[in-house]
């Protein structure tokens, strides 16, 4: 056994476990070209300290940044009996892609839901993980959004969704398309209970996710520079054979065209949500 525990196991562990980030890890900001130390980026919620460029923020860090200390409870999602109902296979098997994504992110699918408090106000949050197959929406994500809506209704709490997704998950074919009506039902449940639905659009939010719950919030907040749209830019260029205008489908462009209420830096999102919710929720609580 010694040989196994001393030599083989560590090797296997080293293969499976994510490698520690080396101390001298610097990231070049695509916004301004500055080199930023990774700790500095982490402390600043992955926002460039010199130009404000928004890098992707993973779901766990996002949740931590929103909820008051020690109030956050992750909600366990029901395991699916069969996560590859079509036995889909492209150049890789979907079941292999899923397994890899699960190992890499230690998440079951592309979404995490949680309840807790934001500046003392109760809320339910659903956060997409772009690193899990591009945040794509299949049955598991649809179920999670329905579950988050049910939870918000039962807690009489607002629902805040943070999409970051390329759209529907192709590997679930038509079953993923059916998540459009399903997640729309989730928005109706929240609204009919008289509760606010706030969508914080993060980079990128496109396809079937935008064409369903993500465009049906009472309030739409977008992070600076986030790409938000229905069709992908490559598809549009191939269809119209023209160059796209500068800043096309960016958060600021959507603000100009009336699709979002405001563009808010990630560093101010908690405070912004807090002021919105205190105006919307306090009269509700007093009712």
């Amino acid at each position, binding site marked *: 056994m010694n040989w196994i525990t001393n030599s083989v196991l560590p090797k296997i562990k080293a293969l499976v476990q994510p490698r520690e980030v080396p101390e001298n890890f610097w990231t070049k900001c695509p916004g301004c070209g500055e080199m930023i130390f990774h700790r500095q980026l982490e402390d600043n919620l992955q926002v460039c300290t010199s130009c404000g460029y928004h890098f992707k923020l993973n779901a766990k860090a996002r949740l931590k940044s929103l909820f008051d200390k020690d109030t956050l409870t992750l909600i366990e999602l029901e395991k699916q009996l069969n996560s590859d109902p079509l036995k889909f296979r492209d150049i890789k098997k979907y079941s292999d892609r899923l397994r890899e994504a699960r190992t890499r992110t230690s998440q079951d699918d592309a979404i995490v839901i949680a309840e807790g408090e934001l500046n003392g106000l109760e809320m339910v949050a659903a956060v997409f993980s772009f690193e899990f197959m591009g945040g794509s929406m299949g049955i598991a994500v649809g179920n999670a959004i329905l579950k988050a809506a049910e939870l918000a209704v039962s807690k009489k709490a607002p629902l805040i969704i943070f999409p970051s997704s390329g759209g529907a998950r192709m590997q679930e074919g038509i079953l993923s398309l059916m998540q459009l009506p399903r997640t729309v039902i989730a928005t109706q449940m929240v609204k009919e209970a008289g509760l606010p639905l706030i969508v914080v659009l993060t980079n990128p939010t496109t396809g079937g996710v935008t064409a369903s719950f993500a465009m049906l919030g009472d309030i739409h907040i977008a992070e600076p520079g986030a790409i938000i749209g229905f069709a992908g830019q490559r598809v549009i260029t191939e269809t119209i054979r023209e160059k796209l205008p500068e800043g*096309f489908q960016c958060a600021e462009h959507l603000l100009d*065209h009336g699709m979002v209420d405001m563009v808010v830096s990630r560093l101010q999102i908690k405070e912004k949500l807090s002021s919105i919710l205190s105006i919307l929720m306090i009269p509700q609580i007093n009712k």
Partner: protein
Amino acid sequence: MFLDFEKQVAEFEGKIEELRHISGDGDTNIATEITKLQIKAERQLKTIYEKLSPWQKVQVARHPNRPHFKEVIKSLFSDFINLAGDRSYGEDKAINAGLARFRNQSVMIIGTEKGNTTQERLETNFGMAMPEGYRKAKRLMEMADRFNLPILTFIDTAGAYPGIGAEERGQAEAIARSIETSLSVNVPIVAVILGEGGSGGAVALATADKVLMLEHSIYSVISPEGCASILWRSSENATNAANALRLTAQDLYSLNIIDSIIKEPLGAAHRDHQTTMTTLGDAIESSLKDLLSNRTKNFRENRRKKFIAMTDNKLI
């Protein structure tokens, strides 16, 4: 127009045409030969169409001579009153809609239109709707709800239009609102996929109590070409993508996504429009009767339950 897998049928029909050309009246030998060839051609068609591959179905579903919504309006409805515009920006000819009478029942009909001539195709943007089209659909669904009119929708689109203006005017929001409205109205909705059911642009009009598909139509989250270029990194794998996506009417029926399949005549709808229209009309009538016979009239609640239960693992 023959599809590439119909070569033999094309050869038979070519011969028949030739013989007709050279035969005078009453030439019995030639007449018998023609009958023989016709039987052969039909047999060939039957063999081909009994086992179409998913990719072949995609080609049939996109056949330019396939009956379009315009023809459905003419054949199945009387007193059609076309209603135009979204009341905020424009009129989109890719989605036609209006009041009509269907076998003595007043209804609201909404459908996507690909057009038959070049000019029509340009006007309808090849059946790819703009946000205005979906907003018109939403407006008319709400009107149908107020006047207690069942809604019938007809879908034949590659998808919603991917363009600069469409994005700037909120294509995604327009589709989301159309789905939302479909889930809000309390009148029966029957949706029919006539040819292509392309992604969000299709489900925007197909969030219905009953979804019917013509036998050789398709309904998919993405086109096989699009899927192939993303997942296989080459659109040449469209055949493989078509297999993997499970997009045929038969697949969707077995996955419990649609409610019934409408049989097409021998060699598909484009060969015999009249028969197609009759079968289509009967299928719609029976679905509508079924829904209207429900005494509770809880269409909205039942529709939501149906979609919540859909894609539940126990059902697939």
